[in-house]
């Protein structure tokens, strides 16, 4: 919309003429709100699909022995569940939230490059198509784990190539999207909004976007090397030709660890937005939050080899990665204590977004602690590739990232739709999700400690009870998300009229525009006090 804002249209005339309708409104949209909406729906679709894969996984693991699937197909399920949840569900959801909220929060009329914004979204569709259809090519989908380790990924069939291209496309989409977000944040802020006055969500996204443009190309390089090893006779990862499969793990995790912070930093931003609203106090330690986020981002580039403690490396290297990993808990701890201090003596109320936020602070910290346990070298050697690791990363990715996204959606949806969501159903969704999540994943700590390996469709009898509990929890967790879909649709269709401020304790530019937010906002920059 950069050109339309340049010309001095009368606002009313513009609204009635320039508003495209029908399908083309979405296909050709350059409006940050429309694109944000599309990102969120895309993400939710992928979330349900990859969640469906998880249901199949848990169905197979309901009892020991092979009931439904052969191991080859089971491995495809776990691999695609991971790939789609990460690249199809969590990351696009955050980009969708950024699209909606960043321009509103900084008082910009739109993103810096609206057409690129449209491109970043539509690139997701062919990538998702490649991933989803890879189930139907000869040999089935990728089955070597979401990390695409060689030699399996060098030997695999056509689906590996499809996944590599999907990763390339997703990488371009993320990089273009991130450049757009950084440029928007740096150049389009309303006058008077200095960097240190920006809302925390904007700050965390700024840092996340930097992580994305530094880390995603490394992954693109890694999968390109895989591709040339597969088809063009290179030997990057082929030991027979002087290469080394472990090299891939180094390149992959050099991307992969920043990637896990890409998936959690915006969640931190959402928490830092929700908690002050419902504690009715300003965020405690704003500046320290900014520095802690930056510190986490910088440290994320020097801890990658803690994913590979068992691949063999000199003790000095192992110790370095162990200590640098432990170091991350310091800035993360700063953030957790800042949230607690924000809640301290606040006049708290527990609407659905706040319930999600408080639960995330608690559950993410559990995931953080189990991460700290895994960072201890001798313990990690015991726990590598067990269900303990599965429990750990679901505590940080589901009850960290995904539940923060849900909280964020409940928090902002009145602004998007103009209606309040059904508070009672929202709370039911929250409690079902939280309880089912813990029933699913808490027992995995125990099965993992007892030595149950991940990515295996069968297990020893001794794990039967805990796995049955996990599976029952997972089915409940999956079903509860349909309730979420219902609440969102109900909120779009109608509900109590939302005020401009929506929440009593909400502050910031996005709450000064009407609800629902009009198609164009802040065409003349707001004035900050």
């Amino acid at each position, binding site marked *: 919309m950069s050109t339309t804002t340049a010309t001095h249209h009368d606002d009313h005339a513009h609204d009635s003429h320039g508003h495209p309708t029908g399908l083309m409104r979405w296909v050709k949209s350059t409006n940050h709100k429309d694109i944000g909406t599309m990102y969120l729906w895309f993400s939710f679709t992928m979330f349900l699909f990859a969640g469906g894969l998880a249901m199949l996984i848990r169905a197979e693991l309901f009892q020991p022995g092979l009931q439904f699937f052969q191991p080859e197909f089971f491995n495809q399920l776990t691999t695609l569940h991971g790939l789609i949840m990460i690249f199809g569900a969590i990351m696009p959801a955050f980009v969708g939230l950024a699209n909606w909220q960043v321009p509103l929060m900084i008082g910009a009329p739109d993103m810096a490059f609206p057409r690129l914004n449209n491109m970043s979204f539509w690139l997701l569709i062919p990538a998702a198509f490649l991933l989803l259809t890879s189930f139907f090519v000869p040999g089935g989908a990728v089955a070597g784990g979401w990390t695409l380790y060689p030699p399996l990924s060098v030997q695999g069939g056509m689906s590996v190539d499809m996944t590599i291209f999907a990763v390339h496309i997703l990488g371009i989409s993320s990089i273009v999207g991130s450049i757009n977000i950084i440029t928007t944040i740096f150049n389009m802020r309303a006058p008077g909004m200095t960097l240190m006055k920006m809302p925390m969500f904007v700050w965390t996204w700024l840092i996340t976007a930097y992580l994305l443009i530094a880390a995603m190309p490394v992954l693109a390089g890694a999968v390109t*090397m895989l591709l040339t090893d597969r088809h063009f006779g290179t030997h990057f990862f082929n030991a*027979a030709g002087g290469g080394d499969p472990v090299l891939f793990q180094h390149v992959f995790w050099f991307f992969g660890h920043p990637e896990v912070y890409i998936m959690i930093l915006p969640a931190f931003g959402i928490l830092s937005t929700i908690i002050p609203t419902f504690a009715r106090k300003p965020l405690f330690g704003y500046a320290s939050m900014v520095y802690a986020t930056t510190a986490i981002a910088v440290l994320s580039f020097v801890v990658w080899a803690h994913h590979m403690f068992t691949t063999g490396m000199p003790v000095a290297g192992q110790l370095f990665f162990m200590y640098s990993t432990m170091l991350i808990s310091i800035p993360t701890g700063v953030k957790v204590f800042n949230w607690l201090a924000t809640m301290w003596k606040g006049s708290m109320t527990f609407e659905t977004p706040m319930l999600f936020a408080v639960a995330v602070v608690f559950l993410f910290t559990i995931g953080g602690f189990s991460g700290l346990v895994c960072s201890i070298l001798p313990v990690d050697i015991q726990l590598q590739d067990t269900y303990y690791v599965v429990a750990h990363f679901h505590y940080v990715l589901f009850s960290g990232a995904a539940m923060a996204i849900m909280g964020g959606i409940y928090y902002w949806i009145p602004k998007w739709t103009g209606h309040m969501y059904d508070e009672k159903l929202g709370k039911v969704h929250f409690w079902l999700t939280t309880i089912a999540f813990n029933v699913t994943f808490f027992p995995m700590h125990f099965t993992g400690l007892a030595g149950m390996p991940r990515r295996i469709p069968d297990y020893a009898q001794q794990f039967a009870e805990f796995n049955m509990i996990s599976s029952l929890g997972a089915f409940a967790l999956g079903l509860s998300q349909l309730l979420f879909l219902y609440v969102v649709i109900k909120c779009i269709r109608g509900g109590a009229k939302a005020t401009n401020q929506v929440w009593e304790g909400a502050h910031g530019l996005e709450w000064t525009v009407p609800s629902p937010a009009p198609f164009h906002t802040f065409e003349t920059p707001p004035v900050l006090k």
Partner: protein
Amino acid sequence: MKPILEIAALNKRLAWRLSLIAFAGLLFGFAISPIYDVMCKKFALNGRADSSATAFDKTLKIDKSRWVTVIFTGNTMPGLGWSFHPSQTSLRVHPGEITLTSYEAKNNALESELGVAVPSVTPELAALYFKKIECFCFKQQTLKPGENRKMPVMFYVKPDLPSNVHTVTLSYAFYNGLPSADKAALYQQGDNATKLN
């Protein structure tokens, strides 16, 4: 706020600068490969320190006061129809002492095959101190169907091997020496064969 055209120009400039970061990231992704090779040689990562011939060192002192057990092992990788094993599974040697041993390989396939042996040494650190003067792994080996070959390895352990290392394992993985694209086809054939069974 500045005039909109000025902002558009600023946006463009910043976007190009940011894409430089992305481009540098891509280059770095590829650069990790040679960097890793250098690190492996320097710090004996993965026991990969030495896969080339070392010249015979006449000034070498044999440390008669110390014994090191060298264990030999070897295996063939999928795609190569050979049987392959060391002639002796272990030897006790003095550091600095030049020792000759051998491995035996037999081609059980119906056609002649090209094999490449990739050595590795454990503990990894010992790879820096394990020197090969002669080894069948220095060049590719071709075996005719049914051919049996005894292949020599001449090595010594450097006397400055850290004193806490008492046992060194030398391991070879024999790969099919075909280009990897052909090999991928071979793996798939193998897969189909197992499925038919």
